[in-house]
């Protein structure tokens, strides 16, 4: 066991290396490129035994990943933002093929306007594909989650690809101390993959992804995919327990932070959660009973777990680092629909959009959210989705607009 300063990207590459993957189809895109650079270097230096292929696009890359997984190989790849969207139709396909593999998405907001910094519209656009989604907060968590994801993905009760999301820049290029676990422990946790389901072999012809005209067949197989995804909640909890026993690190589907006796709850995801945690600590020092939940398992959405954690609370505020224009925050809808029929559901449920394109969420914003929650509890009036945007942000925009010749 070694502890080293690693970027999120390098931690992801280590995860793939330690999982002893067989095949990596690759295509570069900022801010993901360092992952595949590291892997190709290791394969070239022969410290890693895998096949690496540069593809002509993400569409081909995801196709190659799915087809290779259908031969029984353990497959890894990584992409980001525009790249994920370029390969989009294949995401639905590989989920429908019911092949296990792990794909990293390094979050980057989607054009236009084009940027390099993160929000989660890229990854959340893939929420209906049938691919399992786990969103992480730290560099350690990236490495650990890759190991965990292969166990989950390869489980016969699931057999679905897993997308792991980490934020560009805030994790991808940020170094922090990461424990690189021992090989022996990893083998104990993650055995070699021996597929009983899809594997193409010369002597055993089979077909995948066949045409099924007439709705009954389509409906049947699609709903099987849904049931497999629902199975993944239980399997996830099992696998996370095993992981904790072997490695000592705990990754529940929903992470709790200072939730004991909390009356107010913030809901966040990914790396910006750390800003929320810092804010919660400062509120606690002032005697405000507030806690935080971090959504880690996004698909399947762990509804029962969420209900247990939220029932009886006074107010909940969901901070979505994404926007569904014309509707609001994507995760807010998941959270609110999970709570609707609960007798002891929180009194008020507020929706905020923040951190789009990597915009900071500062203490000003967190103060505002707490104030809005208190106000809503007192008055019973709950505002529509609000954007977390400050006077200082506006001042900067005015400056840019002037340069752009508009004012």
């Amino acid at each position, binding site marked *: 066991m070694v502890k080293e*300063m690693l970027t999120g990207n390098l931690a992801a590459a280590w995860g793939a290396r330690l999982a002893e993957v067989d095949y990596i189809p690759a295509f570069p895109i900022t801010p993901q490129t360092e992952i595949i650079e590291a892997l190709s270097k290791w394969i070239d230096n022969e410290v890693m035994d895998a096949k690496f292929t540069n593809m002509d696009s993400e569409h081909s890359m995801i196709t190659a990943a799915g087809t290779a997984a259908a031969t029984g190989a353990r497959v890894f790849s990584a992409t980001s933002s525009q790249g994920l969207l370029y390969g989009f139709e294949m995401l639905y396909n590989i989920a429908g093929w019911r092949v296990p593999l792990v794909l990293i998405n390094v979050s980057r907001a989607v054009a236009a306007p084009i940027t390099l910094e993160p929000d989660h519209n890229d990854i959340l656009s893939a929420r209906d594909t049938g691919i399992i989604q786990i969103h992480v907060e730290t560099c350690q968590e990236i490495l650990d989650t890759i190991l965990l994801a292969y166990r989950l993905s390869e489980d016969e009760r699931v057999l679905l690809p897993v997308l792991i999301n980490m934020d560009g820049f805030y994790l991808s290029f940020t170094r922090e101390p990461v424990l690189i676990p021992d090989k022996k422990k990893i083998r104990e946790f993650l055995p070699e993959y021996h597929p009983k389901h899809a594997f193409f072999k010369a002597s055993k012809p089979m077909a995948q992804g066949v045409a099924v005209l007439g709705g009954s067949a389509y409906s049947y197989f699609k709903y099987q995919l849904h049931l497999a995804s629902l199975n993944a909640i239980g399997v996830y909890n099992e696998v996370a327990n095993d992981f904790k026993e072997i490695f000592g690190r705990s990754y529940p589907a929903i992470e709790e932070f200072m939730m004991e006796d909390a009356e107010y709850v913030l809901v966040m995801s990914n790396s910006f959660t750390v*800003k929320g945690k810092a804010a919660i*600590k400062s509120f606690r020092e002032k005697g405000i009973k507030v806690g935080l939940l971090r959504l880690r398992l996004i698909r399947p959405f762990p509804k029962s777990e969420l209900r247990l954690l939220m029932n009886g609370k006074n107010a909940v505020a969901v901070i979505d680092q994404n926007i569904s224009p014309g509707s609001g925050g994507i995760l807010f809808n998941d959270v609110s629909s999970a709570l609707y029929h609960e007798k002891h559901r929180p009194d008020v449920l507020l929706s905020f959009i923040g951190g789009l394109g990597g915009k*900071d969420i500062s203490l000003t914003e967190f103060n505002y959210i707490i104030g809005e929650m208190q106000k809503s509890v007192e008055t019973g009036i709950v505002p529509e989705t609000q954007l977390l945007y400050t*006077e200082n942000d506006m001042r900067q925009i005015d400056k840019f607009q002037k340069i752009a010749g508009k004012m």
Partner: protein
Amino acid sequence: MIQNQNNMMKGIRFHGRGGQGMKTASRIVGTASFMEGYFAQDFPIYGAERRGAPIMAFTRLSNNPILERGIIANPDINIIADETLLKDNAANILQGTWGGTITLVNTHYAASHVKETYQVSGKIATVDITDIALKIISEPVLSSVAAASACKLTGVISKESLEEAVVKELTDINLKKEVISKNTQAALASFDNTPSISFSDLKLSGEESKNRIIRLRYEGPYVGSASVYGHGNTITKKTGNWRLFKPVIDHETCSRCRACFVSCPHSCISLDESGYPQIDYENCKGCFICMDECPKQVISKEREVRAW
């Protein structure tokens, strides 16, 4: 991990230009902090990457788990490795500095002069780290020397950890042993040349109280879409300040062959009425292709000490 100090947390911000080594500098300080037993975090931020563009890099060290990510808005230590950035409003390198910030500027000017000219808040020191790098490494790469200054200013990183971190980080980017040993030598010289400055007892006053949440209202597409109507303003950006050395043509011996005129990749060389090449120093980036191409070798390389 170090437990005996209460809540020590330092945020270091590095400003430089692409190619000067600020990312590596932030990593050296991160690794040195990690080796000293602190929780550490380091990362660079840049836009569309190119040599010469202003870049920032950051290191955080703390004796507790770090509950922060992203840019350091109010640095405890602000390292300005390229003094020409002081004049670049768009680079905003003094943004968020406050009474508790220690600023280090790479310049031959006295600290008091810089403080007055640019109204720098907090404490300030100046060290000509480019000079140290040129003397010892023979190249104006500032990663090790800038990192060394930052390490010294933290007051908690030893020379031994600095040295070890320089070796580790430069080995990771495949530098040759002799280059690494020159870098460690330069780093130690920079460490010694950087003054010890104690942090003030000032606490950052709640900046957030001055800021507030506002509600956006609809604007027509002229304002509300990311379109640009202004005419190009890149000509107002003088790229000459990316240069550390300037090419000088000896017109006495120049044969007017035009090789430099033709080969300048940025069209910064023009011909005067008599056919002699003249360099546009406001925009010449100092790539020295002209010097390499000159068949009579009448172009020389001169170190510039900035006068602002």
